[in-house]
């Protein structure tokens, strides 16, 4: 027994060391890509607000008569921009906007149903596409982001298994000790206490990202290659098309029927499939205020008669779980407080990505095997990515350059420049200073162009300014600390 204890302890140490090794290997393999996905996802938490911020002066509509809705839909169809679908975004308690759109374009309408301004959310779409596709071709990007979700799940599992002192260190944050211990404490505390959030977004992200591959396989194996039939279990398939012309489907009657039968739900989207044809039909999606589900969908025929309820709110558990992944992933289940918490946790996950890589770099440095160029390139990626996001907004606003191209060029320049830069601390301060200035500038320029009358403009522009000030403060702090360290070294 006396002999077996040290052996068991040594076995446990070996197990923990191997798990830590696996954790580091996985983190190093996916760290940079994971950081970009996490950063863009963190900002995307506010995608509804960002869309409003991009066009803050679009008409505010609190409610709309059925006649005005029909007038707006008819006017939009007359533009010829609808394609195979007519989408109507209804005003809700959270969003006072009425948008009528098709497969290619959309318009804001006023309360009388007049089309007022073309909807253009290019920067928000750029951000979302970075998060869900990494700007790659859609199927490839979607699947790669799904794989990143799997690897994040693996990182969470290996991180927990490799942490035998989880309770002993549960509340320790020793920022005033060695930089490596400070980074390790930050990494571990954020990882452990925000793990429900990390696990939720990792698993739902993997679930969403791998859905295309899974549906393809299920269709090939069990449905003779019919992907629509395979996905029919989760959402109804389209009805047979009949392209003979017809008056636009009576969605106003469908909406009135739904409101009469389900006064407790809040409809937020209407889709008319194959609008203006004999085969057209209507889907209305409504939110359940006390559920995690994205919503429930009801299908109506062209005369507004109810055909079926999807069953996302009361169907098989699988259907309810499937439709809940969206709100769990994007944090839209508790209003602004939960969005702010998701934003903070998202920033925390970015810090976990950065600090994980930093810990590995510091460990190498401590052992005399520093990789100074890689350290600087990592700093370039860390701060170059948010700088790229800020610069891409100017590119989009100028309408001269593509935000996507500008983002990747800025990121590449930041990393390449960092590779050849001097000392890492000065580089970090320079990039942070640049980011602080850019954030404040984005807020100021946006306020100058669009004014601050719309609440979303005020809060977002003020938020950008405050973020810039906070980052500038960290630059100033680290300059002061650096000078103090230098003074001690000179005295020594």
């Amino acid at each position, binding site marked *: 027994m006396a002999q077996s204890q040290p052996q068991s302890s040594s076995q446990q140490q070996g197990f923990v060391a191997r798990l830590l090794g696996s954790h580091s290997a996985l983190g190093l393999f996916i760290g940079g890509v994971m950081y970009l996905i996490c950063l863009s996802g963190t900002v995307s938490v506010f995608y509804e607000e960002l869309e409003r911020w991009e066009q803050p002066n679009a008409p505010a509509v609190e409610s709309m008569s059925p006649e005005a809705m029909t007038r707006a839909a008819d006017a939009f169809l007359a533009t010829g921009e609808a394609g195979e679908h007519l989408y109507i975004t209804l005003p809700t308690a959270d969003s006072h906007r009425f948008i009528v759109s098709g497969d290619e374009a959309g318009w804001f309408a006023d309360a009388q149903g007049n089309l007022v301004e073309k909807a253009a959310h290019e920067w928000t779409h750029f951000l979302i596409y970075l998060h869900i596709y990494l700007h790659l071709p859609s199927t490839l990007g979607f699947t790669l982001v799904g794989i990143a979700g799997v690897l994040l799940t693996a990182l969470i599992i290996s991180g927990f298994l490799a942490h035998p002192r989880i309770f002993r260190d549960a509340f320790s944050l020793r920022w005033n000790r060695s930089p490596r211990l400070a980074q390790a404490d930050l990494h571990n505390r954020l990882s452990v206490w925000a793990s429900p959030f990390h696990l939720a977004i990792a698993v739902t992200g993997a679930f969403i990202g791998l859905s295309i591959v899974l549906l393809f396989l299920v269709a090939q194996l069990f449905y003779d290659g019919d992907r629509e039939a395979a996905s029919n279990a989760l959402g109804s398939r389209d009805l047979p098309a009949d392209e003979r012309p017809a008056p636009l489907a009576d969605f106003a009657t469908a909406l009135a029927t739904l409101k009469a039968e389900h006064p407790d739900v809040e409809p937020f989207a209407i889709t008319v499939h194959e609008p203006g044809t004999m085969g057209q039909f209507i889907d209305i999606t409504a939110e359940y205020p006390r559920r*995690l589900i994205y919503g429930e969908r009801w299908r109506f025929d062209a005369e507004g008669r109810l055909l079926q309820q999807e069953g996302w709110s009361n169907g098989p558990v699988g259907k309810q779980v499937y439709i809940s992944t969206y709100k769990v992933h994007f944090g839209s289940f508790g209003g602004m407080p939960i969005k702010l918490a998701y934003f903070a946790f998202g920033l925390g996950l970015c810090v976990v990505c950065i600090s994980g890589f930093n810990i590995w770099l510091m460990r190498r440095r401590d052992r005399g095997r520093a990789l100074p160029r890689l350290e600087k390139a990592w700093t370039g990626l860390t701060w170059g990515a948010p700088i790229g996001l800020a610069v891409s907004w100017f590119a989009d606003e100028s309408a001269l350059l593509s935000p996507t191209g500008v983002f990747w060029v800025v990121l590449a320049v930041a990393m390449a420049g960092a590779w050849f830069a001097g000392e890492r601390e000065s580089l970090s301060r320079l990039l942070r200073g640049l980011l602080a200035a850019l954030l404040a500038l984005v807020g100021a320029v946006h306020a100058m162009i669009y004014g601050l009358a719309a609440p979303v403009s005020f809060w977002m522009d003020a938020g950008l300014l405050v973020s810039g000030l906070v980052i500038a403060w960290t630059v100033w702090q680290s300059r002061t600390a650096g000078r103090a360290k230098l003074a001690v070294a000179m005295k020594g």
Partner: protein
Amino acid sequence: MQALTLPMALLATVLGLGGLAVLYVAWRRPGRSALLRGIGWGLFLLSVWPWGLAGGADRGVALGMVVVSAGALALIAATGQWRGATPRRQRAGTASTEPLTGAGWGHWLKVFLLAGPLAAVAAFVLALPLMHLSGWAEADRLVATAFAVVILWSAGAVWACATPRLMRVSATMAGLTAAGTALLLVL
């Protein structure tokens, strides 16, 4: 209908944050009292019930997790040692492994293949027939398969990265893939 029932939400918050406070007190004690730890975790579990009543069964639990996580991070930020002590060197032997040393690129290429494509194939090929045989409703099968793939693939990736015995991992993954393929062929 209100999106949140305030009195129940307050009760749930008190229980959740109370559990956190008890865990913090237990952590501060030299012996790390098991009783206090039990009470802390018990209060967390107990807070699930009022959260379910406050915000809906599924949504309420999610809200509760966000509140406890945010509370814990705020507590750590408030009690952290931000300044004052002299920077010391890291103690030798803590959290020290270097995954990219001690093994050649050939080893890490094998690990990459095992943790990536092979673990993925094994996860898909194993999850698809098992879920098909479960007899559940179609939607339940699809969703359970997706989650099973994520969990199996993640576990396979962790195992492939953590073990020095890559042959054992390869053999197990190959065996599982063969078994799953055989089941798919039978189906």
